[in-house]
């Protein structure tokens, strides 16, 4: 069975990244959902993002 059909046979467990109203809607229907306090990597600080990325490169 592929992963999508596997999904169809399970309870939906959601992570919501972004608009909190989507999470609240799910909660109000008793759906298992958690809300992330998402923020861009390094708060969007491009210099820091570049530094982190450099440490992740393979050499």
């Amino acid at each position: 069975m592929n992963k999508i059909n596997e999904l169809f046979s399970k309870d939906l467990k959601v992570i919501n990244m972004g608009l909190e109203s989507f999470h609240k809607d799910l909660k109000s229907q008793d759906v298992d959902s958690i809300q992330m306090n998402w923020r861009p990597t390094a708060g969007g600080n491009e210099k820091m993002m570049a530094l982190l990325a450099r440490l992740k490169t393979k050499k």
Partner: protein
Amino acid sequence: MQDLIKKANKQALENLQKAQPTLIGIGVALKDIPNMDKKTILHAGPPITWDNMSGPLKGAVIGGLIYEGLASNEAEARTLAASGEIKFEPCHHHNTVGPMAGVVTSSMPVWIIENKAFGNLAYCTLNEGLGKVLRYGAFSEEVIERLNWIEKTLAPVLTAALKLRGDIDLKSMIAQVVQMGDEGHNRNKAGTSLFIREMAPYIVLVDFSNEEKADVLKFMHSNDHFFLNLTMPACKAAIDPNANIKYSTIVSIMARNGTEFGIKVSGLGDRWFTAPAEIIDGLFFPGYDKEDANPDIGDSVITETTGIGGFAMATAPAIVQFVGGTPQDAIQYTTSMYEITEEESNAYKMPTMNFRGTPTGIDIQKVIETQILPIINTGIAHKDPGVGQVGAGIVRPPMKCFEDALEAFVELMASEGMID
């Protein structure tokens, strides 16, 4: 690169988890602390010159000089301090930690903690109690008198009692107090009580007058934070083996001198990364407010560096008013710290977190990535010398320390040809 970092960080955490900080005795700064001499004064935080010291630290230095007999009054002490004759060095450069101003002078008695797993030692003065005390920059006669009493009575009584009692395993003691509602930084009530319980049977046996012995017990009893000066060097001893692990991005020191906040990172060895210390957002004692507060000061943040203090806030519901008022807030704070740490403590477990281990081992990569700064519980000193504590609260280090450290780490790796 990430594989090397992971391996190094794993090593750092293994060291930390394996640590066995143990109280082995009381010594004297001059004799026991490495590279100490009569003209050296140790202080909290990263290096600082006399000119740049804040009020409480200057006050403590003045008090220290008077206590040592190097000066007889404030004016003399100031002149001497400014003369260049006195060497000011961070406690951390001498395997030592000091709360608030953290001033250590040559005659002071110090706890000696041995990390039995590695054999390294750490030192810290004996806690002076509350009110007008040297660590908050007070240097009046009563302060000096108390320091003398600590030297002449408290330390000898405890030294003798410790000899009878034998070594005390601080790791298991801290593990217990974490389950008794202490987070190990702003709340030390359980720790102090437990320590008295351990020591009392031996104190009564030692060869001192009943009055002296009673004074010692009363002194410990009257000061909830007595145990802080044991927790701190225990943390220091535990984390010092991580002072220099190549490729590790784990924070090995956080400390403040009242002017600057500084951190060190394991893989970057001895380099300090500093930024101006922040004013603490906290609860003030009646009659004081933010205007009176000195910027963040003290080495006590070594507790957070090793995964207790603010990181273990969830276990200390008694002091949740510092973090917003409800035990739920405290749990939120602790939970958020798991996002920037490498592992969970195998020894310090929190009942309110379903006995989850405290978040341990701050990774600078994670701090930058998530923008979550370590949370620090701390006392607030008055900006003027000698006034003392004016409140308590929470503070976070400046982001700049972590940004600079990350940049330095990347540069180092690049210079070694490890990355492009």
